[in-house]
């Protein structure tokens, strides 16, 4: 028996090791070990005041910090019975989409593309494909600047607080950004074409898929959790009843199941559940994919992220317009501090993120609970690797490892999130 370990897998966020046990060319076992040390955000948030919670939980992740900030604010507002204005919701959605542009561009171009171009990193592209690198940085930069426009900086938004915003962009800034987003649609379309042109293995995961779904629009901020195969649709307040977390021996991150099955959350789940609500150019790109429907080939999570880039540019341009024309205020609403329990959920770039908190009479946190997308996906990644690795075990060693790593990277893992 030979054992292969790929320690500290490169181009993923955080520290993880792939562990493969081979007998000849038969795969006996394969799984992902999460060596990232436990971080204890849930106990750390206990005793902090309600208005400090988003500052702490935003630090779960430097990549999707706007999502953790917004999700924890929603949970605190749920606990305190606060309704925020429509304008606040629009600005928060821009923050979420800013992180989509930033995250998806980083994941697709900096983390994933080198696999398909046979490169160790994105940097050699500066010599060989300067146009590709330029496009990557352009989209990523737009995401950062959208987060900066609304939140004050790319990482860890400053202005988003309980009940609203402490500052919002002016109409001229929104107008300029809208034009920039509209000009970026073509770059996003080319991105989808590029990733559609990369060969990915034919593979179908046996998993369930979960994401937020909403009658109003492509769900990232509001909505219930929906299950693609089981067909149910349940309020996020019940998340503890439809997601079970388990401690597994080989990972500092927990695994999750729903109805006893591993499941996937993320761009591929959202596109499957909400494809009818995509904006026109995004819908067109989805319809013209060479692979046809994305189905449950988890390798196609990449191309789904590219589709979402198109959607994000089109949709955020509309949001900018609405903010310019609709008026209203995003100033924090008045509220009373009281005891309560609240749940918040949003779609982070990598999937649904849930936060819940219990507050005492003075607004101090008594208990907190967070389930990140990667913690939900890790069990399914192991299941996918067990199904996929035997199909490529006959390949030369390096190629075999690369294919398994490609599967891992398609999940766009965030391991530091997973051990929050």
């Amino acid at each position: 028996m030979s054992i292969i370990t790929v320690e500290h897998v490169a181009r993923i966020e955080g520290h993880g090791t792939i562990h493969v046990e081979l007998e000849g060319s038969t795969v006996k076992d394969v799984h992902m070990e999460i060596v990232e040390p436990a971080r204890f955000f849930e106990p750390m948030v206990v005793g902090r005041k309600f208005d400090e919670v988003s500052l702490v939980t935003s630090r779960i992740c430097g990549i999707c910090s706007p999502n953790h900030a917004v999700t924890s604010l929603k949970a605190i507002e749920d606990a305190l019975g606060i309704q925020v204005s429509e304008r606040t919701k629009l600005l928060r959605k821009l923050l979420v989409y800013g992180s989509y542009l930033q995250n998806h561009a980083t994941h697709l171009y900096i983390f994933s593309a080198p696999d398909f171009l046979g490169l160790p990193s994105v940097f050699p592209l500066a010599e060989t494909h300067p146009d590709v690198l330029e496009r990557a940085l352009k989209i990523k930069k737009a995401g950062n600047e959208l987060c900066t426009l609304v939140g004050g900086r790319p990482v860890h938004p400053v202005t988003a607080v309980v009940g609203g915003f402490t500052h919002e962009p002016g109409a001229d800034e929104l107008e300029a950004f809208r034009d920039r987003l509209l000009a970026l649609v073509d770059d996003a379309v080319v991105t989808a074409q590029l990733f559609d042109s990369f060969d990915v293995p034919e593979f179908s995961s046996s998993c369930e898929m979960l994401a937020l779904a909403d009658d109003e629009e492509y769900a990232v901020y509001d909505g219930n959790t929906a299950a693609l195969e089981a067909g149910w649709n349940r309020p996020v307040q019940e998340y503890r009843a439809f997601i079970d977390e388990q401690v597994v021996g080989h990972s500092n991150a927990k695994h999750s199941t729903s109805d006893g099955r591993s499941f996937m959350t993320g761009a591929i789940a959202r596109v499957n559940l909400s494809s009818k609500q995509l904006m026109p150019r995004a819908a067109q790109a989805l319809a013209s994919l060479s692979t046809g429907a994305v189905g449950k080939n988890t390798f196609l999570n990449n191309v789904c992220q590219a589709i979402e880039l198109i959607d994000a540019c089109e949709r955020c341009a509309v949001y900018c317009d609405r903010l310019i024309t609709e008026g209203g205020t995003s100033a924090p609403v008045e509220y009373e501090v009281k005891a309560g329990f609240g749940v918040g959920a949003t779609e982070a770039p990598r999937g649904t993120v849930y936060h819940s908190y219990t507050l005492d009479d003075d607004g101090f946190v008594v208990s907190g609970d967070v389930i990140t997308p990667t913690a939900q996906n890790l069990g399914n990644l192991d299941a996918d690797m067990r199904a996929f690795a035997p199909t490529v075990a006959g390949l030369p060693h390096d190629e075999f490892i690369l294919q398994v790593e490609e599967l891992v990277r398609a999940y766009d893992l965030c391991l530091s999130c997973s051990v929050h």
Partner: protein
Amino acid sequence: MAPRVVVVGLASDFGCQVQITNIEDHLLEMLGVIDLGYWQLASSGHMPAEYDIAVVEGAVTTVEHIELLKRLRETASVVMTIGTCAHTGGIPALANRCDLDAAYSAVYGEGSDVARGRCAPEPVHSVIDVDYQVPGCPIDMDEFLAVLSKALQGLADPLPGDPMCAVCKTKENVCLLDRGEICLGLVTRTGCGAKCPSLGRPCTGCRGLAPDANFDAARKVLASKGFDPNELDRRFDLYNAVREGVR
């Protein structure tokens, strides 16, 4: 030959490394003057045996972190930390306020054997000597580039010592204490251009304690504005749970 730089992450949210990738406009220029020898976040490949500058993000929370830092210090001529986690222990150091055994049980269940090898969180300078520091949660890209270029030229870069209020006043911001919000600018190290108060949000102390700060006087200011003076200490803990000699 261009100096070889390695970037390593300890316990953190990777936000400061993400900020480095956010230097889009200058990223390629930066790569022109340094040899980026290792950066796990962005590239496959192994840590080289020889390097000149080690850039460290994150707080020290495991025995492996301590060993890694000692190795970095022995090899690199310059060690530079980025971000609050490395500088003060930051948010990870809030775990010092928790009972870690109880925390393991709360997160993983009783008698669980995962996640061992953890030690009490510390800033990097508690373990090894540090030559340059870029504070802040997250770091500011321009400040990072400025400190890196000083490190490359061997120039001194002392951190500013005065509290943030001094800079906030020059921005002509309305004092947030007068608007009924507890702002920690009274005691927090400046250098961020009073970013948060300028956007209407009180300072939360992410750049650490200003050496020139007068905590006693700051408590009195809070009391005079009608706040509980102990809130200064409680709130300042957020990013500064391992500070010593303040009280």
